């Protein structure tokens, strides 16, 4: 029996985004079966693994850099992933999460945790990562190799670009997606 070719390893993480990009990834539907024949998802909100392996072939980040935890994850992904992909407008431009950059952080927290709350208004401090200002796109803190704009990028877009990356081709991103797509 011949041993199958080793699969590419893929890791994904969800930073400051709405998870829409991961949902769009799931919209690959039956193509997910084709995908798992070629790649192994070693770390992701979609699988059980709790730690990022020391070496990963392809890393995919959804969401912007808005907290210390986002920053730490982005740095770890950069360190351990051969190819790093920014998935979705939040990762690529800062998008909606970055709209808070026009306000003082204290005003934003007040708005979310005091003004609109009737029961025990309080600003959480324990067990949550501190927020950063300003919110930045992923490539504002680490080098990124492939950008997939879109809010969220469609399953077709993700499929087409991921297929290119897996095959070692340079994807023509603007042929399939744009900001706000």
């Amino acid at each position, binding site marked *: 029996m011949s041993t199958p070719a080793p699969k590419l390893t893929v890791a994904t993480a969800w930073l400051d985004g709405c998870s829409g990009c991961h949902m769009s990834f799931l919209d690959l539907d039956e193509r997910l079966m084709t995908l798992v024949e070629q790649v192994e998802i070693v770390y992701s909100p979609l699988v059980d693994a709790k730690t990022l392996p020391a070496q990963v072939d392809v890393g995919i980040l959804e969401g912007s850099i808005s907290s210390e935890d986002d920053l730490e994850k982005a740095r770890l992904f950069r360190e351990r992933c051969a190819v790093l992909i920014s998935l979705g407008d939040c990762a690529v431009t800062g998008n909606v999460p970055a709209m808070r950059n026009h306000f003082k952080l204290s005003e934003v927290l007040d708005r979310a945790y005091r003004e609109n709350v009737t029961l025990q208004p309080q600003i959480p401090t324990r067990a949550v990562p501190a927020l950063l200002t300003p919110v*930045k796109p992923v490539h504002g803190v680490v080098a990124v190799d492939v950008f997939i704009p879109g*809010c969220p990028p469609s399953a077709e877009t993700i499929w087409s670009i991921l297929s290119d990356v897996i095959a070692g081709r340079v994807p023509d991103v603007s042929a399939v997606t744009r900001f706000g797509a």
Partner: protein
Amino acid sequence: MPRPTPQSTVRVVTLRIDDRDLSAREDETLIEVCREHQIPIPSLCQLDGLSVWGGCRLCMVEIAGQGRLVAACSTRVAEGMVVQTDTERLRHYRRTIVELLFAERNHVCAVCVSNGHCELQTLAQRCGVDHVRLPYRQVPYPVDSSHEMFRLDHNRCILCTRCVRVCDEIEGAHTWDIMGRGSDCRVITDLARPWGESDTCTRCGKCVQVCPTGALVKQGTSAGEMVKDQHFLPILARRRQAR
């Protein structure tokens, strides 16, 4: 530059654009000749029917024997001219210009009223801008919602002056002007008073229709709903000229 007026004795010149031999009337600009021959040139401030502004610099082309780039919308054809419209150098500059526009003010396409119908957004895609390499400035600009029919969002304005020109040259109201320099530069109505208080605005909506971005929109539109219609412009411009 004044709009070329049709003459009966215009001469024809021959020139080369992207290795194609073409002929053109001597009073035509490079961008007009390129459009006639389906040679794509990116542009933002240029609009058929309005005077030439030459401000956005997206239409830059290379002319053999000239070190500096020229704007195709404000350069007349000449006999024997050899023009390149799509070189590596031009693509690099165009991409950078588009990135600067995105970095300067605040564009959040996903929630913008013009999402999917925006010339800046389309141009970014055409120029291969899949991310902005420069840091975003992150400076908020005001929104003027005082007009009962229209809204002005300076965060999306690229200062192309199409609104200024259409209001002055076609509608004849001259409500718009430009005020300030550098990052303070912005379009104003009347003497920088709220648009809703303007004595000159006729509410024709022409500025809204020609604005290439989500800076000028109809009141009551939400994300992706603002679709613009510019068909009126060449027709009105021709009628104005005929007078």
